[in-house]
């Protein structure tokens, strides 16, 4: 399998702090590639660099072989990159199904003229978009709440709603930023199953997650970040046993630090 997403030597500094420094990795289609590391290691910043929210100072990002560094999020969306957010970014005033329908924006006709006139073609497309969105809600177990306002759904539901919205774009690669954060064990298990299923369908997944059990059980490969740099990369078993990783997480030998991240 060839690499779908290739990140090489990417870096950004805020003031004097190198939040992400010379990070290189690649993720393949159908693979679950996880990025772990202590709080503040730069995982979300790395996601923001890849998804075009931040502009990298150095390095390059390639999507299916084409250079996409410096592109805006909407351009990346059109090229098949989608993501979820650590702190929920939901359209709270819209219904659950409308949230997912928006996810299909790149596949929809964008002529405001036709939309203003309410042409039959727009109505047809709306029905099609809604049907696809409903199927995705079904898949994440929210179909019964489709017409509820998103703002009235629980946290765990919104986490799944975000995944459904990201899937609606039919991405080739999906970046998931702590999809199970703040979820109870049942919800986590459900998201766990969902992620494996998505990867099986051929979508490449890059996962940032704090839940070590989840990461170790579903990942194909794991990248460990500390202080914005790559500590190591490997299969879950090797990573879990590596003394450097244990030290980074438990802060062995560093007085006053806590090991509460796992």
């Amino acid at each position, binding site marked *: 399998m060839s690499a779908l997403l290739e990140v090489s030597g990417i870096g950004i500094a805020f003031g004097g702090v190198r939040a992400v420094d010379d990070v290189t990795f690649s993720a393949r289609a159908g693979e679950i590639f996880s990025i772990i590391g202590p709080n503040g290691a730069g995982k979300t910043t790395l996601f923001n660099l890849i*998804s075009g*929210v931040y502009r990298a100072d150095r390095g390059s990002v390639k999507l299916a072989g084409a250079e996409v560094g410096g592109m*805006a*999020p*909407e351009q*990346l*969306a*059109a090229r098949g990159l*989608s*993501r979820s*957010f650590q702190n929920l*970014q*939901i*359209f*709270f*005033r*819209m219904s659950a199904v*409308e949230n997912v*329908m*928006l*996810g299909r*924006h*790149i596949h*929809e*006709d*964008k002529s*405001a003229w*036709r*939309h*203003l*006139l*309410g042409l039959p073609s*727009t109505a047809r*497309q*709306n029905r099609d*978009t809604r049907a696809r969105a409903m199927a995705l809600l079904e898949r994440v177990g929210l179909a019964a709440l489709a017409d509820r306002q998103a703002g009235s759904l629980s946290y765990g539901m919104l986490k799944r709603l975000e995944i459904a*919205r*990201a899937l*609606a*774009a039919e991405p080739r690669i999906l970046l998931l930023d702590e999809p199970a954060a703040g979820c109870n064990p049942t919800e986590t298990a459900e998201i766990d199953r969902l992620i494996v299923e998505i990867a099986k369908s051929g979508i490449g997944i890059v996962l940032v997650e704090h839940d070590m059990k989840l990461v170790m059980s579903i990942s194909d490969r794991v990248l460990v970040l500390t202080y914005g740099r790559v500590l190591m990369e490997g299969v879950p078993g090797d990573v879990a046993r590596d003394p450097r990783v244990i030290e980074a997480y438990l802060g062995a030998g560093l007085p006053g630090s806590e090991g509460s991240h796992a």
Partner: protein
Amino acid sequence: MARFLANRWISLALVAALIVLPGLILPSSYYFRVGALVFISALAVIGLNLLLGFAGQVSLGHAGFVGIGAYAVAILPARFDVPVLLAVPAGMVLSALVAFVIGRPILRLKGHFLAVATLGFGVLVAMVLANEVGWTGGPDGMSVKRLEIFGERIRQPRDWYWISGTLLLIGMAIAQNLLASPTGRALRALHDSEIAARVAGVDVARIKVTVFVISAVYASVAGSCLALLNGHVTPDAAGFLQSVEMVTMVVLGGMGSLFGSIIGAAFLVILPQALTLFHEYEHLMLGILIILIMIFLRDGIVPTLHRLLMERRS
């Protein structure tokens, strides 16, 4: 009931009924004039609600576009012999162009900065209209040629009641079309999270300009109607107070509610007329009423009542 109101044909029929039924029983041309003013304001407020209530982008200068529409039907027929019926679309095109040109740089601003920039635009239009005396007649304004259809002069408030009522219905239907489309979903989405909208592939800058242009055209049509109804325009039509009144109508009726736009407009047009009974306390009463509504119906009249209905049902 709430479900009932959500259906677009039913809400359109409701608006049609609110136009037709009073039209059958109103006793004098004074009432028809007030009715026409309600519909014209509602048209402009629907446009502003798309921008402010749905897309979450403030404009404190929207009366500027009302002014452009009003002076288009005043100046073009008087100075260039353009037929009045052509001057209305000319005003729409001009408003759209102006909105397009200023929209791109202005809409990059957010919140208070956007408010101040749009305020500046509105003040600018009002100043141009007041100072270009040769074209606009200056602060005293100018008279407007009456609309003629089949050689018939349209000057009765009763006629304008039906014309503006029809335009309001069309404007409402177009706004419904837009909101139920991908563009509509995109503009509502950016209200809650611009970054999530962008990640989903929405060109946020483009959508903002699109909705700004659309709302400017609504304001322009309303301005043209207003000028033709009154037979006279002054720069006040584009003034800051008018812009603030439009925003108040949106907020009072309900941000993000098309029906609320009509209620908000009706409220602020009819109430001052009704409150003249109280003579010198008129403005005091109006102010207190607005404050009370904002305290007790915080989301605006229509959305709050809608929610109460929903809660009673479940």
